[in-house]
Each structure stands twice: as structure tokens, then as C-alpha cells.
């Protein structure tokens, strides 16, 4: 259903790189302010990011570690809202066609109204949405209105998913977000999960690309993870740079993203 709507969805373009691997970068809308978020996204695109996830801040981000929790608090304190995040996308879209996904929690989307939210996504060119508190069992209420507007609801697979891997993957759209480790988001020195076999299991049932996130911060990790999947997702390490440098983070972000993209390109 809605194939015509998905024809212009840009997520697949993120994986149309020389080696078919994507580097996906996350940042929180409004951290430290809207102008900076627009600038950071464009800067990261220039430095090689293939897809950007923009976090709509939520008061109670239960899937996040301390680094992104703090970014949520900073953004909300600075007055960022769902409408503010849409405005950021509008400004990005004036100059860029980079694939974009929102990442947030169910409640801000539910409260905005599903149809109103996703028609705005369609109008502004948001290609997907990642909701860590929306498992397979509950996705229907969100997916129907999202798909009607050509927006992909990104499926997540975790180290504990077992038999759920293929059930989830079969219905996945856009890309599949493979959670690397137990716990919440945040930098980790080591990733122990047998991700290769999870990705293998996904590939048995779908062609939708898989990217791995949670805990990735170094080029070595990014290369390794993209090597066993179709891409690496980095959030906390980027948000840390923004936390440290504030509005002046652009040069550091560019340098960091360039090093990560180079590593992913060699995967």
C-alpha cells in the first residue's frame, strides 16, 4: 500500500553509496538552539553524513543514556517544541535534500495528532520516524497514518529479540535499526552482541537495509559495525561534542563526521 507515496521517500538514497554503507548521525533539535541545529545538520551533510536523525526532545526519554537525556533537557529549556522541530526541517529543506528521520517518543506524536504530524512530515520532506517506545505489537496505530503520508516507521531489533527478529524484519520499511547492546544509548568501549547473526537473520527475510546503533563512537567501531551491516548510527558521541562546544561545535562536528564517514566507506 501507498507505493506512490513511498516513491519519493529518500531513505534508500542514504544507502546508495560506493560500498552500499551509510553513516547515520543523530542530534537533538534545539540543542543548544534551532539556528545551531540547522547549521550542524548542513555541516554534517557536507562532511559526509548520509542520513540525519533529528531528535524531537521529550521530557522523559526512557531509552536514552545520560548524554542524550541532558540534550533533551537543554533543548526543552531553550523552548524547543514539535513545531520548532518542523521549522528546523523547513529551513534545512530550503537548501538540502539529505534523507531525514525524526527520533522521538510516542507521546509527542500522539499528542500532536498522528495525521497532522505525518502530513506535516510529508509536506516538509521527513522520510522516517524512530520511536523507541513503539514495539512491533503497537505499531499499527502509528504506521497506518505514517504510511499514508509516505513516512516510514523504523523498526528496531534488539539483542533480546530472538524469534521476533524475522517477524519484525518482514514488515520493516525504510531501514532497520539494530540495537547493538543491552541498555540505553551511550558510548561503550566494547560491543559484545553477536550482531552478525542478527543481521544474517534479517537478510533471510528482507532487502531493507540494517544499520547498527547504540554505543558506537570510534571510527574502528563504525567500520566494524558497518562491515557486518549496512550502516553505523552515532548519537551520543555527536551530542557530546555539541554539549562541550555549544554553538561553536560545527568545525569539530565536521571533523568527527568526516573521520567516521571515511571509516564506514572502508567497511
Amino acid at each position: 500500500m501507498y507505493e506512490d507515496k513511498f516513491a519519493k521517500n529518500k531513505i534508500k538514497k542514504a544507502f546508495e553509496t560506493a560500498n552500499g554503507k551509510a553513516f547515520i548521525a543523530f542530534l537533538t533539535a534545539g540543542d543548544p538552539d534551532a539556528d545551531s541545529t540547522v547549521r550542524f545538520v548542513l555541516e554534517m551533510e557536507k562532511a559526509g553524513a548520509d542520513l540525519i536523525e533529528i531528535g524531537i526532545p521529550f521530557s522523559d526519554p526512557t531509552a536514552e543514556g545520560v548524554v542524550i537525556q541532558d540534550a533533551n533537557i537543554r533543548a526543552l529549556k531553550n523552548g524547543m517544541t514539535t513545531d520548532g522541530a518542523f521549522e528546523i526541517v523547513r529551513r534545512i529543506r530550503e537548501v538540502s535534500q539529505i534523507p531525514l528521520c525524526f527520533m522521538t517518543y510516542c507521546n509527542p506524536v500522539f499528542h500532536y495528532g498522528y495525521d497532522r504530524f505525518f502530513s506535516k512530515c510529508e509536506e516538509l520532506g521527513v522520510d522516517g520516524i524512530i520511536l523507541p517506545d513503539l514495539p512491533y505489537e503497537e505499531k499499527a496505530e502509528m504506521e497506518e497514518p505514517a504510511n499514508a503520508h509516505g513516512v516510514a516507521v523504523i523498526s528496531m531489533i534488539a539483542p533480546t529479540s530472538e524469534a521476533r527478529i524475522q517477524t519484525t524484519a518482514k514488515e520493516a520499511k525504510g531501514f532497520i535499526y539494530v540495537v547493538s547492546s543491552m541498555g540505553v544509548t551511550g558510548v561503550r568501549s566494547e560491543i559484545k552482541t553477536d550482531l552478525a547473526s542478527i543481521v544474517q537473520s534479517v537478510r533471510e527475510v528482507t532487502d531493507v537495509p540494517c544499520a547498527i546503533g547504540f554505543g558506537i563512537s570510534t571510527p574502528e567501531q563504525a567500520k566494524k559495525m558497518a562491515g557486518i551491516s549496512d550502516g553505523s548510527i552515532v548519537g551520543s558521541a555527536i551530542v557530546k561534542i555539541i554539549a562541550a562546544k555549544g554553538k561553536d561545535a560545527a568545525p569539530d562536528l565536521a571533523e568527527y563526521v568526516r573521520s567516521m564517514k571515511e571509516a564506514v566507506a572502508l567497511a
Partner: protein
Amino acid sequence: MSKGRYGIHGGQYISETLMNELIRLEEAYEHYKNDPEFNAELTKLFNEYAGRPSLLYYAEKMTKDLGGAKIYLKREDLNHTGSHKINNVLGQALLAKKMGKTRLIAETGAGQHGVATATAAALLGMECEIFMGKEDTDRQALNVYRMELLGAKVHPVTSGTMTLKDAVNETMREWTNRVHDTHYCLGSVMGPHPFPMIVRDFQSVISKEMKEQILKAEGKLPAAVIACVGGGSNAMGAFYNFIEDKDVQLIGCEAAGKGVDTALTAATIATGSLGIFHGMKSYFCQDEYGQIAPVYSISAGLDYPGIGPEHAYLHDIGRAQYVPITDDEAVDAFEYLARTEGIICAIESAHAVAHALKIAKNFGKDESIIINISGRGDKDVAAIARYRGVDIHD
């Protein structure tokens, strides 16, 4: 639609990492709830350890003073550890043990659920870690030490508003970190399915006993059952076996704090709206963008921005009524019950007492109302003294 629905409410809005664990928990619960051996063990713990059945006490002085319905008090405050929380905790801890878990984690607001969980962990030889908002560890320092005496590790939570909702956030995060040997002993009829069902079932012993006791004492059902509601576990337990008895009014008392027309309130039904949070669809105090509101109540146990999904449903269909009670009204009722009946109840339960004081006279002398005294008030004495401007150097 997914499992665990109460009308449009409930569901399982939780991270993928926890889904298989919730499925296993539901399977284990469905198995053991009909297992005679499990039930015999739990009943033994209830009766010989927790002190069940709890008394249904006829409050004669209160009845005379209020001049209406006969007032009965369901004395959950007399349970071991001092509140109804032990009912759910013993059930869940025993279930977790059968599932092979060796570690319990839990959130706590006032500390009652934390103390109960630490108690069950000590008794059953399990590890225990409790997450409690920093604001609450300060308000309830005695309960923190009590949990530590019982062998639990207490983590003060410094994120967000540093109260009950943040303690739930942090316990959920910890559960996703370590799920293989750990059970999240959730303290109220909230969260993702199957928790609202499991907690309700273990708490429903309250209304099961109430019904037997009131029929014995009065020969007929009560006109009303009144209980305080935060997440709503004592109220759900007190209501459950009366839901089919349509003539019994079910009344939940929410914490209005400084008043429902102020920002300093925790009255979810009165001031909240439909949302999705902490694993469930239900009513929540939130702003125009769905950001969860900081809530306030004098009672740390009712200081929560949501309400369990079955309560939300009982509200929708009009089977139960939810009324706001302010700090002032609750403190007055706390003092009234102490002076009239010699019972110092929890400030949470005092919200239910306060509503009974308002409505008792509307009933006939041949009718009865039952107030669920969900906990004892020793923990609140210092806070009440502060509220009244009395310096007691605790």
C-alpha cells in the same frame, strides 16, 4: 489491537529490548496463577508473614460524628511493612523466583513500595536495588535507611523532576541493562501489559476480603468504596471485586495538591489528557506538546503524572468516579482520623478519608461506606509537622 487493553487504554509501549521479557512474564504469570502450589505458597506468605486478612474496622466514633453512613476502615496499614504494597510485592517476588530471577529492582515514591520490595527480597534471598527520586530520598530519609537495613541498595535519581516518574524512568533503564536475571517489581497498576493485570490481581485480595467482611458485619454490600489513587494499586485492589456490583459506588481520590486550578497538582483525571507514557496509553498530566508535566502533591506516593489504564477505563465508562482532594483537605483528614479513631494513616490514605468526611452525611444510617486505609502514617509525621509549622528536629 495489542494485548492488555482496557477500552482504548493500556497496551505495551515499551522498548524492543524488553518485549520478550514481558511476553515471558505474562506466560509465567498465566501458568502460576492457576498453580495450586504457587497459590498455597502465596496464601501462606499473606497469612503468616504479612498478617492477612487485614481487619475491617467499624469506626463508630467517626460514624456518630459524621451522622450518615456507617464508616468502615479496611486496615491495610496493619500489614507487615505498613501498607498494601506488600500484597503485590510478595506475589511478584514469588513469581520472579519461580522464573529463575535472582534480583529485584523497583521504583519507589514515598518509600513504601521500596521497603516492601526490599523486605520480600530479604525474605526470599534475592538481590535488591531500589530507585528513588532525590527529592523523595530527602523527604523520606527514614525509609531509605529502612531499605538499606533490609539489604537493598538505594539509588537516588537525579534526572528530571527527581520524583516518582523519574524513578520509574531510571528503573526501566536499568531493566534494559540487565534483564536476564532481573525482575522489575513494578509497584502500581501501571506500565506495559502484563503489569497492570498482575498488580491488580495480587491487590484484589483487598476487595475479596472486604466483601466477605462487610457481608458478615452488615449482611449487605457497602454503598461506596473509597480509596486514594496515584498510579492506583490500592484503589484497583479495593474496587476490583465490586466492579460487577453496580450499586456499589467506587470512588478514587486523586491528589489535587494546591488545587486543580493551579500548576501544583497531581490530579490526572481532573487535569490530564490522553497520552502514551511509561508503557501504557492512559491519562497523563502533560503540556500542549505532550511533554509530561512536573506534578506536585504533599504525598510522595501520589506524586505521579499518570493513572493506571484500568482506572482510565473505569472513568471512561462511568463505573468509577475520581475526585480531587487538596493537600489542606488531606492534612485535615489525617489529623481528624488520628484524633477521632486513634489511627495515624498514611497521607496518601488521608486523601480517601477526606472525601468520606465530605460525603458520609449523604448516605442513610443503614448504609455503609468502606475507606481503604492503604498505609500507616509514621513516615509522614515529620512532613505534617513541617506543614503545620512545627519544628520537631527529626
